[in-house]
């Protein structure tokens, strides 16, 4: 089942999402990238209703790019999260709403802080130190509560993420096999292998 995690540390945000694309009981693909790079310092992990996810993620990606082209500077993570939240809240009140869950992680170049936002399809947006979506969240959140440290180095942060992934693999009946992990810090976004 779909699972995504994210956590902040000293000057960075780590975002991880599983890579399976499934339909009903069938695994269709095991190398799907569910983390979009919205701008040079902004990452968004998306999950939820297949179809909705990609459609909405692309909509967000292009609107954020448009803002950047029009206004000379990119949206700050807090502003981007507010915009995405509003889009989902408006969608919820339309005939066909998007059913997507998002984790938005970014590095704010104006205040030099990492920011992470947990957003769901109901238009909830919360700034959090760590977050998870999907079945994996039932196992990972308690772990993160115990082990998360906002001042942790990148190595320690990745170790905490590894704990979450291992726990989900161990306990969840239909656990995803592979994860993609991306990091955003002052130098921008990059992908890492666990």
């Amino acid at each position, binding site marked *: 089942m779909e699972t995504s995690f994210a956590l902040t540390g000293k000057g960075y945000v780590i975002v991880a999402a599983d890579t399976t694309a499934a339909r009903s009981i069938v695994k269709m693909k095991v190398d799907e990238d569910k983390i979009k790079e919205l701008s040079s310092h902004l990452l968004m992990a998306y999950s939820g209703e297949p179809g909705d996810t990609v459609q909405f993620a692309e909509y967000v990606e292009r609107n954020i790019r448009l803002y950047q082209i029009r*206004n*000379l*500077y990119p*949206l*700050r993570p*807090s*502003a*981007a999260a*507010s*915009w995405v939240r*509003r889009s989902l809240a408006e969608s919820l009140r339309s005939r066909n709403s998007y059913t997507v869950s998002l984790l938005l992680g970014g590095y*704010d170049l*104006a*205040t030099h802080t990492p920011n992470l936002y947990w957003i769901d399809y109901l238009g909830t947006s919360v700034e959090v130190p760590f977050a998870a979506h999907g079945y994996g969240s039932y196992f990972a959140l308690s772990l993160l509560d115990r082990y998360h440290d906002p001042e942790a180095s990148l190595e320690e942060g990745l170790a905490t993420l590894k704990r979450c992934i291992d726990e989900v693999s161990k306990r969840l009946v239909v656990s995803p096999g592979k994860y993609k992990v991306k990091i955003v810090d002052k130098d921008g976004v990059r992908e890492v292998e666990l």
Partner: protein
Amino acid sequence: MARRYDSRTTIFSPEGRLYQIEYAMEAISHAGTVLGVLAKDGVVLAAEKRVTGKLLDLSGAKEGGYGGSGEKMFLLNSNVIGGVAGITSDANSLVNYARTVAQQHLLQYNEDIPVELLAQRLCDMKQGYTQYGGLRPFGVSLLYAGYDPHYQFQLYHSDPSGNYSGWKATCIGANNGTAQSLLKQEYKDDISVKDAIGLVLRVMSKTMDSTTLGSEKLEFAVLTYDEAAKAPKAKIYKPSEIDALLKSEGLAKKDEDTEMKST
């Protein structure tokens, strides 16, 4: 067919000029002076009021409101103060538009609008009025004193053509040439707000027609950063505060009676 003539208001002349814009700029160069100085820890604005008189009811400016007499200094958003020179009614309409744009940004992105973006949005509108038929340009130049986390303190100027530019110190309205050359001589990089206030008042007293400064002819505003609230702090001075400031800077009007006594 009035349209046959009206649509020609803002087309190029054979010499390649747009007369309506030049006339608008001319109108502004007769308006009350507005002066802005960017300091390292804030921005200072001062303006010369033109509509004065003994019978003018200023009770609204003395009490209530957010300061200023509503002629030249306006709070556009919690992080931007606007100083206007030109046709006051045109300015009111632009100020109203600016406030709407700023609030729309706040609603959509949950942050104060970046200063340059606000200036840009107003300029987009001003430019539109130089191009479409049957319209005349806004007879207004603005100074925007603002703060945002991208570039901290900023000072912008926009004119009726829709051009805008960022400045360390600038001046619009009557005698702007004199004021700008004074500012060029006296401005220093990393000037503090305290020094900038003095500089602004000194330049203002030299460019204004009247010999002495007083709250009846002057509007004044300062934008600083409130460390405790972690937010920019816009202050538009009330008349009594302006007089107190002038007194502390030693530029206040001297009481004629005391002068008589001393001689």
